[in-house]
């Protein structure tokens, strides 16, 4: 009973505070980092994303003492229902204005709908599904770092054009893997290549020897790995064991993070080609960020997702400030689309009408062990995919926000 009266008191105080400070709801901005804190993706997003969001706030507030910004984090365990419940709790009760990161497509798609329903903001950095800016796009969501279309386009194009014209897919049997396979197959066929076969493996899987044997028998030049995380690293490790690469076939990782390369080791991962949005060793700004990140995160280096969280938070704060208010989520997102993006990690860019953040993508190749000069020195840049070519054309995504 006492607890309830106390809660009522707090609620009343909150209401009072809200009416006293009309511009920012409840007197400040609250950023919720909803991510995988303990599962497979916790290295590539997780606690590191919370750190990146806090870092962005710290950097942004350096010369703006008046603004009050708070960052909170929660674990969605890669489950859509937990993700949805947390989002509702955050938006409704805890006064969270914007949810960032959202690794794993199913969790991002769930929050995408709730943000729209509550007129709040969702900035997706971790998830891959290009449906977020396609048929599921909303006026409250921006998809920041990468998507299945850009990965397929980058890697598929580069490999097919350099002679890898016959493909066999190892596909994780769920929405993400199937989308990645479909998008890549389309790119391969557009470039005159052929898809010789595919096998859908359960998610997660540990032993890929059987699937690799089928891929080997297909005689395809390229084995496309339409999966992620431990599935990808297991497949690559076992492909090397079964002499797939020494037998003349090549692997194409369709979604590879630097944490995966780290887990594999250069000896196994060398020569692997894939597309990413950001690499820590690309310029001085990135290196400085990575150094600070590593110092705060047990020596691990940041992924493109962490950098994406940083970048998205900076742009959000900038837009809220320009708008002088954070209450109307759709208005904030409209402002974010109107203003050009500019931050130290992703440089200059834009946000498109369908909610797609536009920047260059990069085709990387994993270094040979002899080429690597220090810890986490893993990539060399094969090509820069200019922003104009890196993303699905605006009219091809079937996003209802885009006027035909």
């Amino acid at each position, binding site marked *: 009973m006492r607890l309830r009266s106390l809660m009522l008191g707090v609620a009343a105080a909150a209401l009072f505070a809200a009416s006293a400070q009309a511009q920012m709801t409840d007197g400040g901005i609250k950023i919720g980092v909803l991510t995988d804190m303990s599962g497979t*993706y916790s290295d590539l997003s997780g606690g590191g994303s919370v750190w990146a969001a806090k870092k962005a706030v710290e950097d942004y507030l350096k010369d703006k003492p008046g603004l009050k910004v708070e960052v909170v984090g929660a674990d969605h365990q890669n489950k859509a229902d937990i993700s949805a419940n947390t989002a509702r709790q955050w938006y409704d009760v805890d006064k969270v204005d914007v949810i960032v990161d959202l690794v794993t497509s199913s969790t991002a798609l769930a929050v995408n709908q709730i943000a729209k329903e509550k007129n709040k903001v969702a900035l997706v950095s971790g998830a891959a599904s290009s449906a977020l800016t396609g048929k599921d796009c909303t006026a409250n969501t921006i998809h920041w770092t990468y998507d299945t279309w850009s990965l397929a386009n980058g890697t598929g194009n580069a490999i097919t054009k350099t002679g890898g014209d016959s493909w066999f897919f190892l596909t994780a*049997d769920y929405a993400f893997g199937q989308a990645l396979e479909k998008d890549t197959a389309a790119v391969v066929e557009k470039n005159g290549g052929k898809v010789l076969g595919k096998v859908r493996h359960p998610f997660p899987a540990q032993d890929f*020897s059987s699937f690799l044997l089928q891929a080997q028998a297909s005689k395809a030049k390229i084995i496309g790995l339409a999966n992620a995380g*431990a599935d990808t690293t297991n497949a690559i490790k076992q492909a*090397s064991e079964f002499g797939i690469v020494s037998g003349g076939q090549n692997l194409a990782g369709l979604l590879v993070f630097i944490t995966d390369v780290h*887990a594999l080791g250069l000896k196994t991962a060398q020569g692997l080609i894939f597309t990413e949005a950001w690499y820590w060793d690309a310029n001085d700004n990135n290196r400085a960020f990575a150094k600070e990140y590593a110092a705060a995160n047990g020596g691990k280096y940041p992924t493109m997702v962490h950098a994406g969280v940083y970048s998205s938070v900076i742009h959000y704060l900038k837009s809220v400030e320009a708008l002088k208010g954070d209450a109307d989520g759709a208005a904030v997102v409209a402002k974010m689309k109107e203003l050009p993006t500019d931050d130290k990690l992703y440089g200059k860019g834009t946000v498109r009408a369908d909610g797609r953040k536009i920047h260059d993508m990069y085709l990387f190749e994993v270094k040979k062990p002899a080429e690597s000069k220090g810890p986490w020195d893993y990539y060399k840049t094969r090509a820069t995919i200019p922003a104009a070519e890196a993303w699905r054309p605006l009219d091809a995504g079937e996003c209802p926000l885009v006027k035909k």
Partner: protein
Amino acid sequence: MFELLGVPPQALFGQLFLGLINGAFYALLSLGLAVIFGMLNVINFAHGAQYMMGAFGAWVLLKYLGIPYWGALVIVPVVVGALGVVLERLLLSRLYHLDHLYGLLLTFGLAIIFEGIARYAFGASGVSYENPIPGGVNLGFMFLPWYRAWVIVFSLAVCLGTWLMIEKTKLGSYLRAAVERPDLVQAMGINVPLMITLTYGFGVALAALAGVLAAPVYSVTPKIGAEIIIVVFAVVVIGGMGSILGSVVTGFGLGMVEGLTKVFYPEASNIVIFVIMAIVLITRPAGLFGTAK
């Protein structure tokens, strides 16, 4: 080229063989579980975590102490087994007079703790362990990596050795007697609690051994144990709880069934074992090799 059920026979042999290799892991793990359940009546849910500790143990030895794979194969099971002994003395032994459920809950909790520690120490994406015997031989129907051949031979030897020890030696007869009538065996002057402790340590060591064997082929992540342990439990249930021979034969057999599923209908390959488990539970609740108590 003639085909068997729509698949070239070479491919079929290859897949059966690969299934056998996976079966080797199932057999080793379910053997440890069966030994522990048979002797202690404890459902050791921490088995997967102990397997994971074995894999990380091998990596730690190589990385920090420079001890290669072959050394790890001996040292890691001994160390992890010793940890098991401590666990049994400190915690498990207090639960023997209670229902199975308590032991299960305790070991389940321990598994979560071990997994969390590994994630904290090594990260969620895991570490890589180099293959100690790279290369392989072309058998005509498939490329057989030397390492996988070693896994099959070695685990068969370990399974056979364990079975012989329990069924054919004097020590084994004490163990089996202690399961039936601990009071009588104790009266004959045999230290039953010590035997039980060592048995748990041995079962745990088997899990760690499987972990060391797995390190060069699978990505070593904190989750490897949690992923495989569910399947291994199904193997133990199908084989018959506590049946040593049953767990080994079912381990290898189900590995092959799974291998075949990966050819004909890969999407179902992670549920086929559970379908079989359901059928076995309906028709023979004590398992294929078990005897109803």
